[in-house]
């Protein structure tokens, strides 16, 4: 695809564009969905596409093409040129990163054995591991290739693989457990572990009763916290901050979490499902401390925003919108037993439907699903149901009470950005329930 990229790049330069980014993708993706213990559909995609970003005198335009006929490309570029003719300038645009760059190989991001793996075998072993009949989920096999060429002397290529499963097991309508597992290499893919955990949680749920509203210490399973942080991670993008969609507005250099809490974005994380060698401008991905010991250190930036804010580029382009690659919570000192060792707490295994009343203040609620348990003196006392976490993200981050030692990678339908996260206990979380 570099040939095509270079052809488009040359044509765009000749037309008079300044900064140009040509990003081509070839993605092979397989999916098998299952429910009630049987496959509901199998899918396979092969997609080839090229994203084009062009700049002309601080006027920005972009599109995606799938037809590589020269005449078609020329028409697409002419259309972008025409669009930028009378467009207003974006005064806070400062260009794209200047190459060339050196890229280091990242471990555990490619395994050719994944490409030809038969998903059905993995699904069977995961379903069997739940020990239950009513099991639903999805398995993906990924093989993406990325080709990037820019007008600033960047020409780079990345290829990866991945395999992941999300599985939910039901003992009955009100007794379920959910677990996920993702890996970039086959040797570390253990679908039966996800099956075991989903089945174990479902079997722990016995005659759940409606929980009571109030303030509770809440122990978040890695799945539950991963879901929440995946959304929070999007709010670390400077674009979200500027557009009024982030509680981190005006918080640079300020305390936004307990001192024990450090949140990173690691673009070059071995075995990270979001790992890439370079961002969309070709800058080598890196390990960025977003929140360090409770202090907000940076937003996620691309080259232009790093110039605007006079901060170090975090290599998170999106040319239009910086975004996280892999979020990562630094491990704490607590074993699982120690995390649960409190007089009274609620253990939440999964959450979904997180919505904000106010993105800038961080007021929100989210709904626990699957097993929810009342914990007393370190022991699971009973299963509960029908509660809602109704609180404020900043307040919750400030109230982080204990962070586990062992991280799990969470990436599924509810967690778009992969998150590496342990068990986390938070003090005095608001819990509500229906009044009628």
């Amino acid at each position, binding site marked *: 695809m570099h040939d095509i990229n270079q052809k488009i790049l040359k044509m765009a330069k000749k037309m008079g564009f300044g900064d140009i980014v040509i990003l081509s993708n070839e993605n092979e993706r397989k999916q098998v969905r299952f429910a009630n213990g049987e496959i509901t559909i199998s899918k396979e995609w*092969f997609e080839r596409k090229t994203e084009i970003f062009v700049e002309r005198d601080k006027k920005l335009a972009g599109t995606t093409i799938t037809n590589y006929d020269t005449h078609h490309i020329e028409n697409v570029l002419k259309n972008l040129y025409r669009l930028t003719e009378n467009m207003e300038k974006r005064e806070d645009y400062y260009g794209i990163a200047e190459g060339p760059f050196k890229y280091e190989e990242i471990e555990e991001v490619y395994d050719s054995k994944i490409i030809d793996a038969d998903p059905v075998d993995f699904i069977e072993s995961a379903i069997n591991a739940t020990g239950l009949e009513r099991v639903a989920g999805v398995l993906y096999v990924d093989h993406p290739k990325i080709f990037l060429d820019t007008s600033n002397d960047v020409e780079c290529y990345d290829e990866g693989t991945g395999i992941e499963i999300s599985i939910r097991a039901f003992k009955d309508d009100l007794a379920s457990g959910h677990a996920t597992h993702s890996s970039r290499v086959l040797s570390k893919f253990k679908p039966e572990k996800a099956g075991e955990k989903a089945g174990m949680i479902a079997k722990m749920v016995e005659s759940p009763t409606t929980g009571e509203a109030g303030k509770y210490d809440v122990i978040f399973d890695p799945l539950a916290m991963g879901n929440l942080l995946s959304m929070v991670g999007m709010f670390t993008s400077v674009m979200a901050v500027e557009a009024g969609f982030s509680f981190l507005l005006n918080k640079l250099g300020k305390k936004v979490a307990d001192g024990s809490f450090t949140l990173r974005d690691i673009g070059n994380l071995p075995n990270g499902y979001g790992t890439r060698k370079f961002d969309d401008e070709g800058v080598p991905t890196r390990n960025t401390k977003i929140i360090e010991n409770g202090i907000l250190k940076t937003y996620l930036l691309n080259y232009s925003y790093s110039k605007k804010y006079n901060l170090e580029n975090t290599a998170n382009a999106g040319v239009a919108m910086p975004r996280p690659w892999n979020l990562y919570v630094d491990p704490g000192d607590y074993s699982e037993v120690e995390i649960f060792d409190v007089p009274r707490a609620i253990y939440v295994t999964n959450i979904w439907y997180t919505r904000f009343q*106010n993105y800038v203040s961080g007021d929100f609620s989210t709904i626990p699903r699957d097993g929810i348990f009342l914990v007393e003196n370190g022991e699971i006392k009973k299963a509960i149901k029908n509660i809602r976490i109704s609180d404020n993200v900043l307040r919750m981050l400030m109230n982080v009470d204990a962070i586990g030692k062992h991280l799990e990678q969470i990436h599924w339908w509810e967690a778009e950005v992969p998150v590496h996260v342990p068990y986390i206990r938070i003090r005095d979380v608001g819990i509500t329930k229906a*009044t009628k």
Partner: protein
Amino acid sequence: MEDLIEFAVDMALKKGAKYSEARYHKKAGIDFSLKNGELQGVEVINSEGIGIRVLADGALGFASTNILTKESIANAVEVAVKLAKNSSKLRKAPIEFSEETFHRVSYEVIPKKDFSGLNMEDKMDYLRRIEEDVLASGVNVPMRFIAYTDWVEERLFSNSEGAWILSKIPYVNIMYNLVVYENNQMEQAPFISTAFTGGLENIDMAKPWDRAVEDAKVLKNLITHGKSAPEGTVDVIISPEVAGIAVHESVGHPYESDRIYGREAAQAGESFVKPDMLGERIGSDAVTVIEDPTLPNSWGFYLYDDEGVKARPRYLIRDGIINEFLLNREYAYKLGTVSNAAARAVNYDREPIVRMANTYLAPGDHSFEELIEDIKIGVYIKSFNEWNIDDRRFQQRYIGREAYLIENGEIKNPVKRPILEITTRGLWSSVDAVGKDIEFYPGTCGKGEPMQGVPVWMGGAHARLRNIMLRR
């Protein structure tokens, strides 16, 4: 394109499929936004491809390609059939589709003010007007994000049972996020959309710039004059906007047959509704909820679904009784009936799944004044920000953005963030009267894996709920 579609359908049968369908799906349009007055750049939306779904050996296979050559399509067909056959290993019973009557038709939504013929500057004027009117409103709105999107969607669907549907539908959407600061306090109106199928004449009539100014003023008034919701049990009036989200979340979703049968269990969840609950009471006599894809210019408009079945209004709740589920062919067969055309796919690379289109609380016979006249203490929730519902669709919550105290039949001061946190049965059983007039609000409904965000309208009439404890 017709040749390629027919080729795909025929080839799948030759390769051993019992049923096959192919859908060419193209989207072309433009998207741009102003962030705090500054144009962020423009994106030209351009996507096209073919999705092929087959039933073979009792299992479903799906493959898609955006390389529109006979060779690539043949490969996709082979893959789809192979996937289905391979999946049959883990099927307890074969998947079957309901018998349907299919048509050969084409239809098109013809805009009066066609955005395709306009240049970008003309479209930009819509955003500039919102930006300028909000800045001139006398309200401090330091953060403004305003976006314009239009696109035309063309589909050609054919299946091995004789369906052939060609359609062309234009979409236009203007969305804004406003953050208001007054008296060192901040309130927000996020993701407020005005959206239609058809042309810009619909936007001209809806005047989103007026709505944006009104939203800004409402938030300022809320900050300066807002009080907490009253304590204890009160009566609540929910507006068409709040009724809309409530019918979408607690009626539309749980009546989706694929959820009822557990197909979405590991994603959006299941449903408190079971197949044998048809005919069961779920609300008061005053409650009728209709789902209708055929409403002209609606955001969820279509006349034939993505399985080629002709659309019609669906009465999900009639006079408080569960009346009908949303069905595709797979689940219509399970229920021994025919599809009611609820299968939608958002793009060529997505399978059609059971979806809503335009869901609304049917009108009753009360004027707004009649709804509030006998309320001693109550709250009128006119719009909302935060909302969510559990994955069985029984425990929901809506938090008011614009809301007012009702005292002795009159609208009084603004109420800050009244929280309606209630069960589905509690909500619909509490309705004792419904307003005469209906309104609709656009949204993007998320479901499926990979995610399929489809355009929907939500709305209906005002409703009066008796004896509700609001959270504060």
